[in-house]
């Protein structure tokens, strides 16, 4: 249970009222999930950092018109993040790359062999996700990369939770198929 002073809704309300420390806390709270989402969509770390920064600036500028709803503020941050990624794609269609080197695994594994395994799996997974439909990619990234609950994903995509669950299942099945094909190819 989050304490009142770290509750995202309270922080958002305070930020809206002009409390910059509250916005800083939101920043720390949401930066990583937003960054991960963007990174998975654009595949370039530096670009992801810039876009994540842009997202927070956009949210900050729009605080005055932000309306508190039932949803946690993260949903609003994600809406802005999605639009920012779409805008980026519109501007830079050619910048996306299939380069396996763009995937840099953090050294969290215990030994070099494990690191290599994870790296290869991660790279294949990234390629496989990219082969899914746009809608499936969005759901998979939001669910498993940004850790959003189904309710929030449904809210963000204007779908029911049941539909989101169905998309997830189809996406995971398609992902398995893609992974098999890619593994055979490699």
């Amino acid at each position, binding site marked *: 249970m989050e304490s009142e002073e770290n509750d995202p809704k309270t922080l958002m309300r305070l930020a809206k009222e002009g409390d910059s420390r509250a916005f800083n806390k939101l920043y720390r709270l949401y930066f990583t999930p937003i960054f991960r989402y963007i990174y998975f969509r654009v595949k370039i770390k530096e670009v992801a950092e810039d876009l994540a920064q842009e997202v927070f600036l956009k949210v900050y500028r729009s605080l005055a018109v932000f309306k508190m709803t039932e949803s946690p503020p993260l949903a609003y941050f994600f809406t802005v993040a999605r639009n920012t990624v779409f805008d980026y794609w519109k501007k830079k269609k050619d910048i996306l790359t299939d380069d396996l080197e763009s995937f840099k695994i*953090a050294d969290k594994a215990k030994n070099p062999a494990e690191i290599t395994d994870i790296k290869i799996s991660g790279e294949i997974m990234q390629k496989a996700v990219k082969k899914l439909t746009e809608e499936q990619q969005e759901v998979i990234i939001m669910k498993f990369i940004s850790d959003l609950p189904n309710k929030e994903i449904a809210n963000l995509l204007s779908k029911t939770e049941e539909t989101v669950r169905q998309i997830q299942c189809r996406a995971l*099945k398609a992902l398995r198929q893609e992974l098999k094909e890619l593994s055979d190819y490699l």
Partner: protein
Amino acid sequence: MNTDETKKLYKAMSEAMELKEKGKQLPEILNLFPEHREELEEMFQDIEVLALLKESIEPAEGVFEKIVANKEINRLLRENEAKHFSPLQSIELFSHWLTAKKVYVGIAVIVLIFGVSGFYYQQFQEEIISPIAEKKESGLAANNSADNDLAPKNSVVLKTEETISFKEMESDLTNEINSLSDDLNDFEGFNNDDLLENIETIL
């Protein structure tokens, strides 16, 4: 795999994921769906790889500090702290509010206009018209003492020019009509023959 089988598989996948989210152990979950065991095992493997992938995606060291130190964000934060809302944000907020509450705002504006005009009209009456009327009335009183015969007629004219309430005008006009009627009666009661005789005598 036919449609029914696919539907069953999706149902099993969905339920298995839900159970995992609720904290149930993987072997227990797999035992609950023996007919889809293989597919579910693969699904959870993929989810695990996705989780590892997620953990690997971290912003570069110091990037958060770099962003927090961003000049524009800091400027905005300072402005916001100083003013609570910047003028731009206030305008944005107001325009957003206007758009959201079009009808109510329309009604409120009309009510406001009526309210303000009513208030100013009342003030205008109290502060401008009444003092002038009083002033004129006191001026008229002075004139009346100097010229008693003309006073009633003048007073009607002046009061009509400046003035005042319709009731007063009506009462003045009634008095004037009565006075004219009296004159007319006097004139009608006058002996014309005697007047002619007097004129002839003078001539």
